[in-house]
């Protein structure tokens, strides 16, 4: 197999007495849509934040294209080409929609634009892709939740990432909006950006992802084709629990 684009080696994160992620290896290959699944509290979001450089790992390393990007901070990770969206949307509320996206355009992967007009053009391009262009001049706080979720994606896209990390972008969307976002994610991948997503919606995951990794209690318990991972007995147990009607053993 080819070299992975983004990989984590022996990643662990400890919060006081809680080992949220323990000794996880993940490999994401160029052109993939890679899914991280697992029940609540399995450590998905923590692993996600380790990969995005938002949190430094307690142990282990993150590599982009074979180059270590561990512990260099979210801003440098972004400049290297890995960008994350936030599970709970965090727009710059005092700015307009297009200004929000211009921040990504200005400070993303190099070469960075110097002029406002250049950043504006890049931002409009990203808004166009996320179907937000007609909202460009509105204040960000005027958007509803689906709009804010797409704004998160547009901002991240404007950084021109090689790897886009999406944290539960489908959560809170109705079926129509979910379908549109799934389409958008496919389009982003087809335009050449590798995608890692954390997702609760298993139906969407099945349709979207080329590969999955399942986390349970901070450890990776399965990895591979979506159908195989979702059918894995350990994963099924973790999601719906072992049946207690049947006598154990």
């Amino acid at each position, binding site marked *: 197999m080819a070299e992975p684009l983004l990989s984590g080696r022996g990643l662990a994160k400890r919060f006081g007495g809680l080992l949220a992620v323990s000794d996880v290896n993940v490999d994401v290959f160029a052109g993939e849509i890679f899914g991280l699944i697992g029940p609540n509290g399995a450590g998905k979001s923590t692993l996600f934040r380790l990969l*995005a450089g*938002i949190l430094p790992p307690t142990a282990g390393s993150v590599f982009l294209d074979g180059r270590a990007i561990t512990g260099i*901070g*979210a*801003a*440098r990770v*972004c*400049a290297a080409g890995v*960008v*994350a969206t*936030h599970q709970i949307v*965090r*727009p*710059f*509320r*005092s*700015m307009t929609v297009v*200004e929000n996206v*211009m*921040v*990504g355009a*200005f*400070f*993303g*992967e190099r070469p*960075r*634009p*110097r002029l*406002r007009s250049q*950043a504006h053009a890049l931002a409009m391009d990203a808004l166009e892709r996320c*179907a*937000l262009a*007609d*909202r460009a001049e*509105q204040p960000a706080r*005027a*958007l*509803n*939740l*689906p*709009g804010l979720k797409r704004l998160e994606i547009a*901002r*991240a896209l404007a*950084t021109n990432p090689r790897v886009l990390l999406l944290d539960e972008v489908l959560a809170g969307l*109705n079926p*129509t*909006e979910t379908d*549109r976002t799934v389409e958008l994610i496919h389009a982003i991948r087809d335009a050449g950006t590798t995608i890692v997503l954390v997702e609760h919606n298993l139906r969407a995951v099945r349709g979207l992802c080329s590969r999955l990794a399942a986390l349970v209690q901070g450890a990776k318990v399965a990895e591979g084709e979506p159908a195989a991972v979702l059918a894995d007995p350990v994963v099924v147990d973790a999601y719906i629990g072992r049946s207690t009607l049947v006598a154990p053993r």
Partner: protein
Amino acid sequence: MPATVRKLVAGLVLLAAAAAVPAVVPGWEYALDTLFIVYLYGALALGWNILGGFAGQISFGHAAFVGIGAYATALLAGRGIPLWLAIPAGGLLAAAFSLAIGPPTFRLRGPYFAIATIGIGEATRLIALNWTALTGGASGLTLAFAPGIVPQYYGALALCTGAVLLSWWIVTSRFGMALAAIRSDPEAAATLGVQTTIAKTQALLLSAFVCGLGGGVYAIHYLFISPDSVFGFSLSISLIIMPIVGGIGTVAGPVLGSVIYTFIREQLEANFQNLDLLAFGLLLMAIVLFEPLGLIGAFDRFTRKRTAPMPPPVRSAGAGDG
């Protein structure tokens, strides 16, 4: 952009009018003196606003930079260094000091940062008070000479104009966008590639430099400086009041705040001691409650209401926006 052109024209007209004042009213020292104070405090407020307004890092200790600039200018001028060198040296010294305090204080967020800056302001005041050999301690420093009121007037006008131009450049630049993102949500800014600590440090550096220059101009005007005047907590508070009253995070706001601050103080201080503080307190409360963007914000809202219709209501979810 017609709005930008309009602002530029308005600024140039104001600048031309300000520059003409000494020629129009020669010898009217009171007017020149009052306007000098407006420009000086306007520059200081703009300096504070770079860090507090644009980057959202509220400092209660900016008198430290004013004091360092003032003392450096006074000490250097006292040793025969010409003012055109002594004042910039004071600005640079204040900027250098800001580099020392930036890294530790920027580890703190929100109110903790504010409290740390109170500590810095007070610490510098106490050092100035007790380092008697250098600063003369509580008896302060007296400058032996001063340029006339007209050169002072133009000096302060130049400083204020420079601070306005610097602020304007910031709000229209990539750097200003980084600061605005940090003010709004530092963590989200970082994930989009903004080096938040570096950007905040740069803002502090510029902020301290402007306030340090202002300190030097203060020293040559008043000819007497003491720890309680240029390092005093009340000066730090004034530097916060002016931008908030005028419009925090805007370019014109701090200058407008300086006009109002100077006017109120001149009117009230002579006749009713300390009543000006009550006036500022009430003004601050009104601003915070009703118009967080200050008088500039109120003005914007007023003009927009008259000239442009309100934006259409936001369509709700699932209305096929796109």
